[in-house]
């Protein structure tokens, strides 16, 4: 192995080790995730999905894929489900 190659391998090794161990050198321990945070992420995802469903239902109605009666019933049901999700989110706050 020539000197230049050895030097380059050393530099790469030091850089890789420095990159990987940096979080361990912070000197404090943090919890990965609280149960509450996971639940919040889940509810936020559910909220976004429900909003998307409400918007799609409205677009479907406007484009003639749903009758007015069906749309009203579906929209009412979806909004009630969205309210439940928001209530769950508020309980976490």
């Amino acid at each position, binding site marked *: 192995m020539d000197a230049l*190659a050895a030097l380059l391998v050393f530099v790469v090794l030091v850089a890789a080790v420095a990159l990987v161990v940096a979080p361990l050198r912070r000197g404090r321990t943090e919890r990965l995730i609280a149960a509450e945070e996971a639940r919040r992420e889940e509810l*936020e995802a559910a909220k976004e*999905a429900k909003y998307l469903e409400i918007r799609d239902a409205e677009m479907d109605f406007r484009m003639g894929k749903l009758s007015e009666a069906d749309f009203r019933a579906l929209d009412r049901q979806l909004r009630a489900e969205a309210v439940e999700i928001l209530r769950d989110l508020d309980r976490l706050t």
Partner: protein
Amino acid sequence: MPVLGRACLILALVACAYGIGASLYGARTGRREWADSGRRAVYALAGLLTVSFGVLELAFLRSDFSFATVATHSSTTTPGFYKGAAVWSSQEGSLLLWAWLLAMWSSLVLFSTRRRMRDITPYATAMLLGFGAFFCGLLVFAASPFHVLASAPAEGNGLNPLLRHPSMMIHPPMLYSGYTLFTVPFAFAVGALAARRVDAEWIRSTRRFALAAWFFLGIGILLGARWSYSELGWGGYWAWDPVENASLMPWLTGTAFLHSVMIQEKRGMLKVWNVSLVLATGVLAILGTFLVRSGILDSIHAFGASTLGKPFVAFIALLAAGSIALVVSRRDLLRTENRLDSLLSREAMFLLNNLVLVGLCFVVFWGTFFPLISEAVTGQKASVGPPWFDRYTVPLALMLVLLSGIGPVIAWRRATAANTRRNFLFPSACAALCAVALLPVHVAQKPLALCMFAFAAFVAGSIGQELVRGVRARRAMASESVPLAAVQLVRRNRRRWGGYTIHVGMAVLFVGVAASSTFQHTRDASLVPRQTVRVDGYDVRYVKATGRVADDPDGTGAFMTLGAVLDVSKGGRHVATLRPARNYYPGDPSQGTVGQYIMGDATSEVGLKAGATRDFWVAVQPDAGWLMKVVAKGNDLPPSAGGLALAAIAQRYAERPPPADFRLIASPLVTWIWLGGMIVAAGGLVALWPAPDLARRRVTASLRARVAQELGRA
């Protein structure tokens, strides 16, 4: 610099092992710093493999034949453009490309999710590093790209001439990007199951990567088809070859996944199905790499044969068994949140589309592995050909095209009789009109092709109707001009409209496939100059022969080119002048002074007149008997006379040519296949285009609220 390359590979393997341990420790103990350290091991892996790949690429560009892989896969006569891409023509180089792309994509996804899904990502990190460890292990212990020869030869073997085609330069990186990107949703599915969090968040966070995988794999498959059409000299674009099939299988299950995840996101349904699909897609992506690299099945991709079968089989078995065990152990969490409301709904159509796609994948899998299955059962290796595949795939493809027209116009949850009538009237009229218009011509004699054309018209009608109604709806809601309403419609739901564009592209592509495979005219003829042959109403006249030495117009580095000039006319009207040729590349010097140039590798450069309605395709093969005679004569000459002898042979061929064998093909609508592919790619880009990050907006909103609250307190 092979030492640097090899050292980086060893460090990469160590980084994988460390990262797996740190990530799993972080996940089990909940200690964030260990999970972060594991994530950074992926960044380190990307950096180390970038250095390794750079070293190898540099060796190829510099024609450094002290590297064994450079000596066997490149040469000083290989054109510069192809030298750079010759890296992935070797087994070692292609495995390194796989690992490098995996590390780059993994780094990207882990960076983009570094503040989200903190319970899932450590497991996903460990899984991604598991893939990395497998490929780095192969590169360190079984197929090192940095093996150094004791004495470097003066010249290398050169790049396989079949691979000297522009498509082949981009095709492998595209396929490998597809394969490696499919490991991302695979890893996150494993992470979600391991962390017992199976809501739609992991799907939302990795959906774009699944879509990118599908996009790249699709482009790779299409480029492969284009290469086959213009380079392999048989006149087709798809031969149901095992290696082609290997890339198609994960693409099919990936397509099914991209459709069915919408049902989970919207309705919380099909969780087991989605997880199973994405896990199967990940396993099929590794299986695809294995089929290219193992040589276990006879394939036109013989350059890929190797001895890496056993580790691949063990890894695939581990992935498959682990996936099944994980899904079974989490079945209680994967209960559906809703039921199917009606069989006449978009959910039901998605489900049917999934069954068709998985059915197609099963047919392809069965046909691909039939030689191994038959050998295991009967002791004899038997294979199935294109007619077997066509028998099952054609009806399934017809259903798929029809469903891609039904899906966009049918409502979620439940379609009523009234809205079904309203939504299907126009697309059905388009299909009926198309069928009636085609009845008087000979298309009617081919009912399956007629159905495909009618179904494609149905798709065009349904998407066109959606666009018009969508624009109208937006104009009613926001009083926008027609162009602005159309742009806003697409902008507000890029995923939907990108998907619809893809449906149109696929319909166009299938029309091209149906027309070109059903109404193709092929003729094989042996001709001498001034003879004429007729194909599908076209008169093809062999005008003259051509011969060139070291003057390859396509820049592939061919040493000698023997070709023909053909005049194509119809009803006395000139249509095209075609120049098919046969390229000859230097081979084994032991085959003699002239034999080494003619008995080595040879490729067809086809003559092609592509058009919107018809392609005219010609390949030429100079008379083999004549060539054997000139080789026998030329081999009596001393080696130093090789160049002059070849020049004399080329001149003799051009002036007094022997009969040449021609394959002449007139195929309708082949261009539609490439056009359809481009529309699909455009739709993919629309769907992939990043929308504003909801998570970032949420974080910003909550920080603003906090600032306002704290200012209020002060």
